[in-house]
């Protein structure tokens, strides 16, 4: 099977793995949250803060955040919009789509023809189904001229669409990143 990552995977020291395990489901809500982590790792608070800064600089930590539950905040609808964008334009336009305020993730992924012809994924969130549909239309307007048209044989039934939106019908499992102990 092909490589999934662009980075070498064994990047974490044993202590850093412990740090990930301790913090991945959240810090305790107390005045000095890193104190708890320091005690568990048997190092100083200053060392925990230094480790956090280092993991951030290495890109292993994306950000330190108060992570809201969008569903509870009324963002009940999401759509995974998928697009068959011409390869030569995908990087430029991916960045444009990624900056739209209602897009939470925007990724380039491989096609698997003939089963799967979409290479650009943009996740949109809204408070109503209509809102999500409107966001999809906005992205469509941006990408209109750079989408692949794969069905030029008019005799054939339409095999490929140039875009689609997959709405979620049910959350079957949702947990944060879990590292194996």
């Amino acid at each position: 099977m092909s490589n999934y990552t662009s980075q070498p995977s064994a990047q974490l020291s044993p202590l850093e793995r412990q740090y990930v395990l301790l913090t991945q489901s959240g810090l305790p809500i107390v005045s000095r949250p890193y104190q708890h982590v320091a005690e568990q790792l048997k190092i100083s608070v200053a060392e925990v803060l230094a480790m956090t800064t280092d993991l951030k600089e290495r890109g292993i930590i994306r950000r330190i955040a108060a992570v809201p539950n969008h569903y509870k905040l009324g963002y009940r609808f999401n759509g995974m919009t998928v697009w068959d964008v011409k390869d030569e334009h995908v990087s430029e336009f991916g960045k444009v789509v990624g900056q739209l305020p209602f897009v939470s993730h925007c990724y380039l992924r491989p096609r698997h023809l003939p089963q799967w012809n979409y290479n650009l994924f943009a996740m949109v969130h809204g408070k109503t189904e209509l809102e999500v549909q409107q966001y999809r239309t906005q992205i469509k307007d941006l990408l209109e001229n750079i989408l692949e048209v794969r069905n030029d044989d008019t005799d054939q039934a339409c095999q490929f669409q140039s875009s689609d939106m997959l709405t979620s019908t049910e959350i079957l499992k949702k947990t944060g990143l879990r590292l194996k102990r």
Partner: protein
Amino acid sequence: MTISLSTLEQNIINQYQKGFPLCSQPYKVIAEELNSSESEVLSAIFKLDEAGILSRIGPVFNHKKAGSSTLAALAVPAELLDEIAEIVNQFEQVNHNYAREHSYNLWFVVTASDDDALAQVITKIEQLTGYQVLVLPMEASYHIDLAFNINFSQHQLGSH
């Protein structure tokens, strides 16, 4: 039931989805930034946490760099969806699983310690379900943050 949020609570949600202060007493820093006191900020955060409006506070890890991960999908008959979802969910390496309206109707994220472990999990899922997994690893990210501005004015917040 409607949750009403104070200005302090709204500011906390909108301003700390990234850049939560990294220091020994972060709530003190937030209090200074929001013209409040540490105890007010802490009690606001307690309330948001209790109500489930905040899912957690802490580092957000990059799955790809903390291990190896991929988005994956299965196309299964509708009547088998629940059964197969259960098989997939049994894997501790599966950390999201959504049913979606499409011929590929089961979408999940697989995370493992390295590429080989990830490939093994996918092979096992294929063996146990009898369906071929569509493997869609991220090749480039054009937006790295799940942080967007929450619009508090548009609708009332509901929790039901």
